[in-house]
């Protein structure tokens, strides 16, 4: 039997190398922890300090609550409170397209997975291709298309393209294809359900995890989108907050001494703006982490 001496040998040799690999692994995880978390902590602390304190104090010190208030006032005074407009716009664009996305992609994914119709395979293939296609390269033709239909500068120029979400359709397709037995549908059909009832009474209640998943990805993706709104919305009042942040950056004296002169937007205000801009997404992240992970894998593994 060769197993036993082999096992004994590895057991004896393993000890020092085990310790070493433990140290290496621990160091790797710790370095990554600092890398991922430190910038977030810095960002959350920065609005509590003055620009001077940020430069001179310990980078991880807390300033004062009063200073956060001051930064808040500066930020929301900027161009007569345009920051509030930007946030509202982001909510309208992401919320509006979220509703449309869910309405079209849940039904489409369901039909692709569980009904037969001519062109089904083509639709699936095209979905797959557009899903993998780099979307940013389509932003320019999209701009021209929207321009032709006189949609530039309207909310639709953002909401409609945002609502097209092939990845969501694909997720729903996989979910229904793998977790909804056809027999269940056949049985309900025998009992006299029509196609719409099948969808709303049987499929939809079972689809909660994937609906949440699509909603999350779509909302976060659209909330963070920059390129399309940057092109199609000419007016600062119409910007979503991401494009607004870009404008704030160009108005910050430390990054742009000329344009930023005389404005109250300094590093604490900018940091606060970032925190405010990502807050909805961050809250979503914190609350949906567990559901997300299980849903992501349920949708992902197909088995």
């Amino acid at each position, binding site marked *: 039997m060769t197993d036993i001496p082999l096992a004994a040998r590895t057991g004896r040799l393993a000890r020092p190398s085990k310790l070493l690999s433990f140290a290496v692994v621990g160091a790797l995880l710790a370095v990554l922890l600092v890398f991922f978390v430190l910038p977030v902590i810095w960002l959350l602390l920065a609005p509590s300090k003055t620009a001077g304190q940020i430069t001179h104090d310990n980078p991880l010190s807390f300033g004062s609550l009063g200073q956060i208030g001051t930064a808040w006032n500066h930020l929301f005074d900027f161009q007569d409170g345009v920051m509030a407009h930007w946030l509202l716009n982001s909510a309208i664009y992401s919320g509006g397209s979220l509703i449309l996305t869910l309405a079209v992609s849940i039904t489409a994914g369901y039909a692709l997975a569980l009904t037969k119709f001519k062109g089904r395979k083509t639709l699936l293939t095209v979905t797959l291709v557009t899903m993998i296609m*780099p979307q940013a390269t389509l932003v320019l033709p999209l701009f021209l*298309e929207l321009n032709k239909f006189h949609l530039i500068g309207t909310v639709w120029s953002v909401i409609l393209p945002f609502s097209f979400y092939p990845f969501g359709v694909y997720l729903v397709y996989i979910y229904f294809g793998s977790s909804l037995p056809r027999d269940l549908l056949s049985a309900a059909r025998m009992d006299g359900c029509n196609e719409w009832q099948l969808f709303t009474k049987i499929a939809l209640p079972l689809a909660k995890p994937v609906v949440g998943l699509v909603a999350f990805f779509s909302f976060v993706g659209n909330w963070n989108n920059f390129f399309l709104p940057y092109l199609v919305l000419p007016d600062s009042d119409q910007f979503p907050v991401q494009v607004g942040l870009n404008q704030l950056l160009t108005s910050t004296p430390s990054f742009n001494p000329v344009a930023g002169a005389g404005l109250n937007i300094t590093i604490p205000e900018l940091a606060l703006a970032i925190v405010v801009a990502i807050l909805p997404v961050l809250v979503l*992240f914190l609350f949906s982490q567990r559901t997300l992970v299980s849903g*992501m894998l349920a949708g992902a593994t197909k088995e």
Partner: protein
Amino acid sequence: MTVLETPRVSTGTPRRDGSAPSRPRGRRLNAGYLFVAGYTVLLLAFGVFPTAYSFYLAFTNERGQFTGFNQFTKVAKDYRFLPAFEHMLVYLVLWLVVLVVLVVLVAVVLRGRIRPGTSAVLRFLYYIPGALAGVASVLVWLFMLDPDVSPVSWLLEAMGLHSFAAVLAPGHLPLILMLIAFWTGAGGWMVVMYGALNNIPDEVLEAARMDGAGPWRTVWHIQIPMIRQWIVYMAIMAFATGTQLFVEPQLLQTASLGRVSPTWSPNQLAFVFAFQQGDFNGAAAISVFLLSLGLVAAGLLVARSNLFSLDDK
């Protein structure tokens, strides 16, 4: 079985479950069409049409006359074209290698080498920066990389980078963009890989151990091959997003007061062609270059993995 209506179309794929269709085919056909109608309209309007339109623009001139490959040769000869694609390529290689190696390594470690509770906490903390995608992440890193305010200014100083300008030297950009992309994206992928590793049945790992495979041999010969399709999927997605670089270099360009080129990435170059030179045909040609690149790479990877199967189970 009674089929009351002759199906107008053959569905191609035979029903796998063997059950007889219990209703006329015609009605189910219509339902299917209704269910996909909204999505199909959006797909045509915002997926298919813009793609076709960008090809049309790339092969014509501003008066709509067919010009063959003229637009492509014109933009390819532009002095900013090669540098932009070179920048993107360097960035992509760096980003893909770092992403794949670190994400797989960390997922393996989180799955098997440390206590489950610690692993869950770490996965969550690594995942948080994902909330700060886009503009926010770039702004955060502008601060992290500015020796005047950075919490790791000692590290920057140690590397001989004493000013923000020195950090933003054009040669550093692929590395900086990689850092930002890794910071926002890697945590999510670690979660996905962890889940994929979780799906490997314990018996398989047990069997490997019985056969005398050490932990790292198990990783290399069992775990990694079994999550291969997920690694391929990650690589495709990372490649696709990598070719789309726009907001990150654009913001760095703004913040560096012009030291970084405004046409650093191909997408920025297309943007300049379209909106500063008014040359939408040239811009479309650059877009088509990028699209083809993305599609060829994705197609190759999809063909070699079985992740995206279109067949019903």
